[in-house]
């Protein structure tokens, strides 16, 4: 059954969702707890390295993060410009200090690690396997399937939105958000058809689930438990290494 690793999966894709969850929690915990820039850089490097090892093309991974990167840059600049304490490095026009730069870099790196590790998690973890893990962990199966159904609807809504926008173009309809009236028109012309499609789809899926006895019993057959393998060991080892480094950095006063 598909809860087992599939042939060809490598890196974090071959690891269990539980190991990936621990890795995500570890990365987020380390960058939130450790004030060290070196540790945060190491965490970011780990995310990129793991993405590459897991068969996620780095180019497309960075492209999917472009808004995150832009926002991180804004955070960095805002911090650097707003902090007045410390040794001034630039004083013409604006005052930039070493503390400001360090603080900006720290905040931007923290933001980047949290977001990029979450993106990596979504890239490499099969939602079916994640739901099975959550259900096995005690989450009621109806909620576990909510996750799968939500993901099932993502491509559907993307496709419907594209079709409705094309229908507007074909009819010569232009939508804008320049006035309240225009916003109302845009909502009606865009969201109503998409919503109607969504509701029709919900009806069909409800019939399909009911027709296959979903929700009839309090439990359902649990898929086979996944065994830990080398990829899980590597993911947990990575977390252990980062936590160890963070503790060492804290004791050694690394900044």
């Amino acid at each position, binding site marked *: *059954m*598909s809860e087992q690793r*599939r042939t060809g999966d490598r890196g974090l894709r071959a690891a269990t969702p539980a190991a990936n969850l621990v890795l995500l929690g570890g990365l987020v915990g380390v960058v939130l707890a450790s004030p060290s820039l070196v540790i945060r850089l190491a965490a970011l490097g780990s995310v990129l390295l793991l993405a590459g090892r897991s068969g996620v093309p780095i180019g497309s991974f960075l492209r999917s993060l472009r808004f995150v990167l832009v926002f991180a840059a804004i955070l960095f600049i805002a911090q650097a410009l707003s902090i007045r304490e410390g040794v001034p490095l630039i004083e013409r026009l604006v005052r930039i200090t070493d503390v400001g730069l360090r603080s900006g870099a720290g905040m931007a790196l923290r933001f980047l690690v949290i977001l990029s590790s979450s993106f990596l998690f979504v890239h490499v973890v*099969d*939602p*079916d396997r994640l739901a099975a893990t959550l259900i096995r962990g005690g989450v009621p199966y109806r909620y576990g*399937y909510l996750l*799968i*159904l939500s*993901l*099932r609807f993502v*491509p559907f809504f993307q496709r*419907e939105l594209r*079709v*409705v926008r*094309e*229908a*507007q*173009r*074909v*009819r*010569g*309809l232009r939508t804008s958000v320049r006035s309240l009236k225009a916003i109302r028109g845009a909502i*009606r*012309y865009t969201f*109503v*058809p998409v919503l*109607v*499609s969504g509701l*029709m*789809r919900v009806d*069909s*899926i*409800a*019939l*399909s*689930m*009911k*027709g*296959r*006895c*979903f*929700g*009839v*019993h309090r*439990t*359902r*057959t*649990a*898929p*086979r438990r996944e065994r830990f393998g080398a990829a899980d060991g590597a993911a947990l080892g990575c977390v252990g290494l980062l936590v160890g480094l963070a503790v060492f950095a804290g004791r050694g006063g690394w900044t």
Partner: protein
Amino acid sequence: MGIDVRGLRIHYPDRDRPAIDGLTESIGDGETVVVTGPSGCGKSTLCRAIAGFIPELIPARVDGELVVGGASVWETDSARIAQQVGYIQQDPDAQICTLRVEREVAFGPENLCLPLEEVVGRVDESLAAVGIDHLRHRETTDLSGGEKQRLAIASILAMRPRVLLLDEPTANLDPDGAKTLFGLLTRLRDERAMTLVIVEHRIRPLLEMGPRLLVLDRGRLVRRHSRERVDPRDMGLRSSGAEPGTTVLAKDRLLSIDGLTFGYDAPLLRKLTVDVRRGEILGVIGPNGSGKTTLLRLIAGLETPAAGRIERPGVGSVGFVFQHPHHQIFERTVSGELAIDGGQQRPGEFERWLAEGRLDGLGGVPPLSLSLGEQRRLTLLTALRRGPELLLLDEPFIGQDRRNVDWIVSQIREHCARGGAVVLVSHDIPLVGALAHRILYLDRVPRFGAPPDVFAELRAEGRTAFLPGFWESDG
């Protein structure tokens, strides 16, 4: 497992008349029954009632008796019915609940709390039965229409039902896919002694299965006949008036496509050269995924060619009617929908348009509350109202009964008689064969020419499902 219906009456709360009105019929164990009839005649309602969805999941007032396998549907737990009756909806994509093929097939047995070994066994067996074992690790969103249809059947087979209900199973399949599906259903029925109830408009290929045919109209059973006595009117000849066009085509071109190349991830259309003349109906046929809808999108300017040219000399505007009408409905009322493009209306103009679309008296009604056939007529009317010279139609006949098909055919012909042209994408091969002046068959090697020439080439290649004779009455 047999089905007995006695004086069945089903009335939805928001409708004037019952969807099923006093139906009485018996379907024997292991029998194959095809249910046909015009849109809104109660075919799908009958299936949903047998599957136990009415009134538990779909509210309606029910009277009469409906007995499946000796037990009244009204008094039986829906979970128990689901283990005996499998219902496959018209759009297979709309009933897939999970993200991977294997998980989808396991979904039902897992809900029954069966031991894991049995779930695995049922998954293997069901995937093998429909011939998609090789797809078990694929993502459900990556499957083609035909593969999704097989997956829907496999996921129902895993519940081991004794009765299989299929609601227009070929609506989204190309002719090859439909032919393969009919073969699969025949095998399943013979090997598993299943009772099959198939709602279908295209009857001719199903006759190989030796079914009984029930014809419904306005919720009533109007005709029933065995294979030997099928009335040609009920055989799927949905537009008896659609005779081959005899118009001599004008020389001026409304559309000229030269060396068109386009693809998404992989090449789809390669160096395609086609033209459409004033007054012409160009029929576009071909397998699922061969680029038929993409071609319409390119002509409409919604996509940009990778290479080649698309020219529309002298064409002011293009009308494009999508496959699903609800995508093109935006306003609160039918009149609002007709007025959406602006412009001055002459007195009585709306009434004339509504009458033309057989939508009289519906001007103030919310368009999304109309039936599928009415919505289709409305979207075609709104497209025609803009006065396009070139009209693009994407599968306009899906889910339409004979009356609606005849109306659409009349609009196409009138449009061409006024000097316009139509590019018609459809899987309805007999209709395309009868209507089109020229046919474009899209596949790896496209074919373009007069219908007899294109069909002769397809016949020589053994593509029998793309020939009108495969779908038409032999009586």
